[in-house]
């Protein structure tokens, strides 16, 4: 939050300052009352007793449940993002192909996998592997989760790649063609490497979506990720609230870290490219820590 004054309101005079101060106090009191009410409710429901929170001081809680769960979550997320990038690049390049049929096929694939819920994809992938392939039942949940995440996020990244390639200056292609490169060479040696750097922040932001979506694997697939491991722990220790608060905090910390990473990479790239923020200063006085609008995949809200 910056302290720069926004253009939405005048520089506060004595009266406005008083009014803001009064409002601040009122809101602060309301928040405190809300916090007190939460504390009171928790206390009344015996949620704050040592017995509920002590398990977090024991090694067993962490080594048996939370850390293995976190490891599975990170494993699924890492595998998904590593496989999604080449899949996304292939689909994105195919959508820019000179051959109409290839553009069509890639377009249909991308639109299809963006239109259906990841959870449905996961369930189907698990059933498919069980029925038609020899994937062992132990490995199946992870493989199914990664498959579904790759299909969905590969499709999202395909759009990001496409926008990234289209955002490159035309002179890049023209110069490459002028020195006698072929279409494939232009794409693989000139355009793709540059597009990758342009979209790196968007890929890191997509990682947040992937990390959150790994939790879907625990609902119907019995994939032992963090949320599911935590659910097991909660029923063992009988402290659902405490466990879920801790698990939510772990996810928040992990994703905020990724979010800051994306912002940092983006800022560094802007400096390297020598460009400032394009356009006017944002009206709110709050800059968008973001990617150029063209590169923001439009279904961030998953």
């Amino acid at each position, binding site marked *: 939050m910056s302290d720069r004054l926004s253009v939405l309101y005048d520089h506060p005079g004595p009266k406005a300052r008083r009014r803001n101060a009064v409002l601040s106090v009122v809101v602060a009191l309301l928040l405190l009352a809300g916090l007190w009410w939460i504390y009171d409710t928790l206390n009344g429901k015996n949620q704050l007793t040592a017995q509920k929170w002590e398990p977090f001081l024991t090694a067993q809680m962490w080594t048996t449940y939370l850390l293995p769960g976190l490891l599975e979550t990170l494993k699924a997320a890492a595998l998904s993002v590593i496989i999604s990038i080449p899949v996304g690049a292939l689909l994105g390049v195919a959508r820019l192909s000179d051959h109409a049929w290839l553009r069509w096929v890639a377009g249909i694939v991308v639109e299809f996998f963006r239109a259906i819920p990841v959870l*449905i994809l996961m369930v*189907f992938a698990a059933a498919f592997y069980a029925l038609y392939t020899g994937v062992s039942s132990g490995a199946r949940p992870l493989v199914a989760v990664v498959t579904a995440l790759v299909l969905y996020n590969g499709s999202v990244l395909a759009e990001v790649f496409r926008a990234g390639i289209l955002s490159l200056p035309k002179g890049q292609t023209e110069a490459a063609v002028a020195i006698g490169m072929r279409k494939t060479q232009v794409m693989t040696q000139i355009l793709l490497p540059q597009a990758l750097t342009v979209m790196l922040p968007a890929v890191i932001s997509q990682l947040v979506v992937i990390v959150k979506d790994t939790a879907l694997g625990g609902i119907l697939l019995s994939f032992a990720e963090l*949320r599911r491991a935590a659910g097991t722990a909660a029923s063992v220790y009988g402290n*659902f609230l405490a466990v879920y608060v801790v698990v939510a905090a772990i*996810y928040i910390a992990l*994703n905020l870290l990724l979010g800051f990473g994306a912002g940092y990479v983006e800022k560094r790239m802007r400096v390297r490219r020598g460009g400032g923020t394009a356009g006017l200063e944002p009206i*709110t006085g709050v800059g968008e820590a973001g990617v150029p609008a063209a590169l923001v995949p439009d279904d961030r809200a998953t």
Partner: protein
Amino acid sequence: MDFSFLSDPRYDILGAFWMTIQLTFFSAIGALVLGTVLAAMRVSPVPVLRGFATVYVNIVRNIPLTVVIIMMYFVLFSQLGLRVAERTPGVNPQGYLDTTNFRLAVIGFILYTATFVAEAIRSGINTVPPGQAEAARAIGLRFTQVLGLIILPQAFRAVIAPLASVLIALIKNTTIASAIGVAEASVIIVTGIEFNPDQITAIFLVVALGFIVLTLPTGLLLGALAKKMAVKR
């Protein structure tokens, strides 16, 4: 490809998708209201309001929706005893449970989706040229008037497309309500694995088609509306 399951009474396909539509409808309205309030808080002159909205958005946005929905049931409902439906002893206990789960899911979707709505609206506010706000202040409008009469109407026209993406994401996200026992579209494929694993691909295609029927027109209609409503600058 064997589609004989379509005539099987165990598959209430229309009913399941009707549940998806209901979840989406109530959650979308709630999220739009809460999201607008959060966005207004984020640009308000009162620092405490700004801080609260910022913290709320950044915290809730980073929790997996699965965790949010399951927390609704296991934490809010069973640990803290929040009651969201009327219970008449002895009358239709299953109906009571279904209503409870449905409402808990809707609350979860609203709390989560509102953060994305707020971010979309805030980016929409940023598309309004500063001159608009300066002119509004120059003729003596207060902050609430500047925001309500000048900025938000223009911002809303600019955010129809991003809000359409949020709505489509919400339609797909409603499947997560199955985690707390709401029988929406994902129930079809779960039933399929149990009773007709041999037809699983056909069942998957039918469910996929159902979602395409829901998401594609939504995207196209709102996309056309976004073009029509865009403020010519």
